[in-house]
Structure formats: C-alpha cells, structure tokens
C-alpha cells in the first residue's frame, strides 16, 4: 500500500481463487481453478449445463466448500463455518436463479432483515435504505406485498435489492434470468447493467449474450470443471478459440 511501483497501478484483486479443486463424490466438478477478479470488474461465466458454473460461484461465498486450493476475499482467506464466515458472507451478495425471497416476509422486510439482524443497523434506518433500494430497482410500490404476489421479474429485482442492502463488495449472480418469462428478462438485466456501470464487482453466470457484450469486462468459458477460455466478450463471441466454445456458441446461437 505504501510503496507505489508502476505495476501497482492495476487495482488489487478483490477475489482470488488459486488451485481450487472440488469433487462431488467421484465427480471432479472444479479442476484446478485459478481466477483473479479486480475491484469493479464484471466477469461473465458461461458454459454448458453441468460444467460447474454454479459450483464455482457458490464457492466464493462458501455455500460450497472446496477440497483444495485457496479463496481470498479482499485479501482474507475464507474462514471455516461459524461467526467469522457469516460476517464474511455478508460482504458477498448472492442472487439465485429461483430468487429465494423469504416467503413469509413482505418485500420490505426481505430487504430489512439482513441489515437489522446481521449488520445491526437500527430499524428505521434499515427501512429507509430498503425503500431507497426498492425505488432504485423499480419495485417500491410493492413494498408491503408478499413475494408470492409479485411477478418473477419483480421478485428477482427485490432479491437484488436485498443483496445490495448489505452493502456487499462483490455480487454473485447465478443464472438470474433463467427462471423468468422472456418479457421480464430485460427489466432484471437493466438493473444489473446499472449496477455494473456504477462500478460493482460482479460475477454473473448467464447465457445472455447481450448483457455480456454490454456489461462484462471478461468472459470465462467453462467446460467439465475447467476454465477453458477467457477473453473479452467481443473477442469471445465473435472468434472463440477452443472447439468446445465454438460448439457451445453455435448451439446457443441457433437456439
């Protein structure tokens, strides 16, 4: 921090995975993953189903443990299960394919709960933050409804607000638009684009090429538990290098 050499002008990495391996029984889901994500970077993870994208995403907030290798967040290695890990998880926002809003809580409460219980923020202040965030993702009018009363697109935007309420350093999105009807995909991607534009560090598992092209700094292509290819979105989509990527892209393009 004190010495500044020319090579330090690059922002320091926020998330670092080195030599990460994971098995599910005999299945080697993550094979020697090395990955550095710098502050403000938007990384899109793409690849065939079962290639390990979700698992990779989930190791970053330790919803999945790893067998070997290290993961650090802002310089700190992920601690083992317990209070320390809980604290660290609050720094990593996660948005799920199936939204996973707390079904028994109103929209507002969904966004308030973590602030009050985890961050110990006073309730009135937490509600203020929650309302501002709901406004920002365009669902302020639904604040007092239960999640089940909202459309999928609205629920996912609430889920993003809920994660943002913790003021996270990184946001993980695991196929955030895959469970949505087509007409709702854009309203969610729009929110994600604005987040990216504001400098949020993001890891996004998605097959939405439009989003990748407009918002991502980097595309990682995964197959069989490995990062097979890594490039700018433009280069990846126009000129994939590996056969696996070419094959995969031709399939999703002709879909």
């Amino acid at each position, binding site marked *: 921090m004190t010495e500044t050499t020319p090579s330090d002008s690059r922002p320091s990495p926020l998330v670092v995975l080195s030599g990460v391996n994971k098995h599910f029984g005999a299945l080697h889901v993550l094979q020697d993953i090395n990955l550095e994500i710098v502050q403000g970077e938007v990384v899109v993870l793409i690849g065939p189903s079962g290639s390990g994208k979700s698992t990779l995403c989930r190791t970053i*907030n330790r*919803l999945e443990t790893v067998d070997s290798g290290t993961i650090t967040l802002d310089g700190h290695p992920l601690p083992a*299960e317990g*209070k320390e890990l*809980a*604290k*660290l*998880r*609050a*720094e*990593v*926002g*996660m948005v*799920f394919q*199936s939204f*996973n*809003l*707390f*079904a*028994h809580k*109103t929209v507002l409460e969904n966004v308030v*709960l*973590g602030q009050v*219980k*985890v*961050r110990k923020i006073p309730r009135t202040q937490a509600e203020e933050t929650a309302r501002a965030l709901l406004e920002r993702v365009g669902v302020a009018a639904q604040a*007092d*409804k*239960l999640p089940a009363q909202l459309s999928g697109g609205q629920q996912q935007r609430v*889920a993003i607000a*809920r*994660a943002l309420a*913790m003021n996270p350093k990184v946001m993980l999105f695991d196929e955030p638009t895959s469970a949505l009807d087509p007409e709702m995909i854009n309203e969610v991607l729009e929110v994600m684009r604005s987040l990216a534009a504001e400098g949020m560090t993001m890891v996004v598992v998605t097959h939405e090429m439009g989003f990748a092209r407009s918002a991502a700094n980097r595309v990682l292509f995964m197959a069989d538990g490995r990062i097979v290819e890594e490039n700018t979105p433009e280069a990846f989509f126009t000129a994939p290098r590996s056969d696996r990527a070419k094959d995969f892209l031709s399939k999703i393009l002709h879909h």
Partner: protein
Amino acid sequence: MGILFEHGNFTLFRDGFLRTLELSAVSAVLALLLGILLAAFRVSPVPALRVFGTVWVNIFRNTPLTLLFIAVNFGLPQLDVHLSPFVFAAIALSAYTGSFVCEVLRSGINTVSLGQAEAARSLGMTFGQTLTLVVLPQAARSVLSPLSSVFIALPRNSAIAGAFSVPELYNVQQTLSDRGYAIFAIFFWVALAYLVISAAVGLLFRVIENRVNRLAVAR
C-alpha cells in the same frame, strides 16, 4: 355421581386436577424447548450433534413411557440425583415428548425449500438466525397440526406420574378407589377432567393455527 361433593373429595380432586395441569404445562414447555434444540441438532452442520439428536430421538421415542418413568425414578437416585417425584415425572415426560416434538419440527423444516436457508446464509446470518428467523417460521404452518397431537397426548401421558407418587388426577382415582367409592363414578370424573384439558389444548392450537393462517394470507 355426587361423590365429588362428599367428604372433602372435591379438594382432593381439585388439587389433583391442578397438579396434572401443572405437570403438563411444565413438561410441555420443557418438551418444546428440548424439541427445538434437538431439531436444530438434527439439521446442524456438525456431525456429532446430528448423531446425538438421532440417538436421543430413537431412544426416547421408542421406549415405553412407563419404562422411562422407572428409569428416571430408580436410575437417577443411583447416580445420586435426588429430586421430587414431580420433577422426576417432568423429566421423563419432557424427554419423551421432546423427541416427538423434534421429529415434527424436523419434518416441518424439510418442507421449507433449501433455497430459503441458502439465501439467509448468503446474507451472513448464522445457523441459529437462519433457523429461527427464516426456516422455523415457515415450517410453523405445516408443523402446528401434528404438534397439537403431540401436546394433546401429553396430559394423558402424564397420568403415569400418578403411579410414581405424584398426587395428580390419576393418583386421585386410586385414592378414591381405596376409599371404596363406585369405580364408575370415579372414572367418570377423572375422564371428564382429562377430556377438558385435552380439549383446551386442542382449542389453543386451533386458535394459533387460525392466527398463523390469517397472517399468511393477509396483505
């Protein structure tokens, strides 16, 4: 039928009734707390706790309650634990009932999708917060009806305490029998008393269920 109003029998009966209420209430509270703790053990990420929960439930759920009373009343004094018959009875009843509460809660927990717990953990909630703030409240609806069966059975099960020197309702029946009253009249009143308690517990759960259901559809 008038036996209740002869020779101070009413006081005896009333005290027995209150004793049964007291024993049931104390055991219910302990069983509920124990059941929640055991259920938390059974779904916890720590293998040793899961094993403990499983072993406990399998022992206490599958042992006849009378045997548990014998074990507590004769086993604990051997370990130099000397408590009143009432406390022994409460221990046996809540250890037994708690294992049923645990299983009801655990099956309720399993009705809540895993994604709910994952979302809670991702926000940085601890295991305890995830369970009490997110999972258990959602399990509550599916849990209330089987839980009411467990707690309706508790006052009836508490009758065994009467054979272990607790002067509760069933014990009153023995005393009255010894005094030579007609067995039918005695059983009529004792049975009626148990019926009243069970009905009250059932009603209480109905009220709670309605409240929870109303909350869930409201808004």
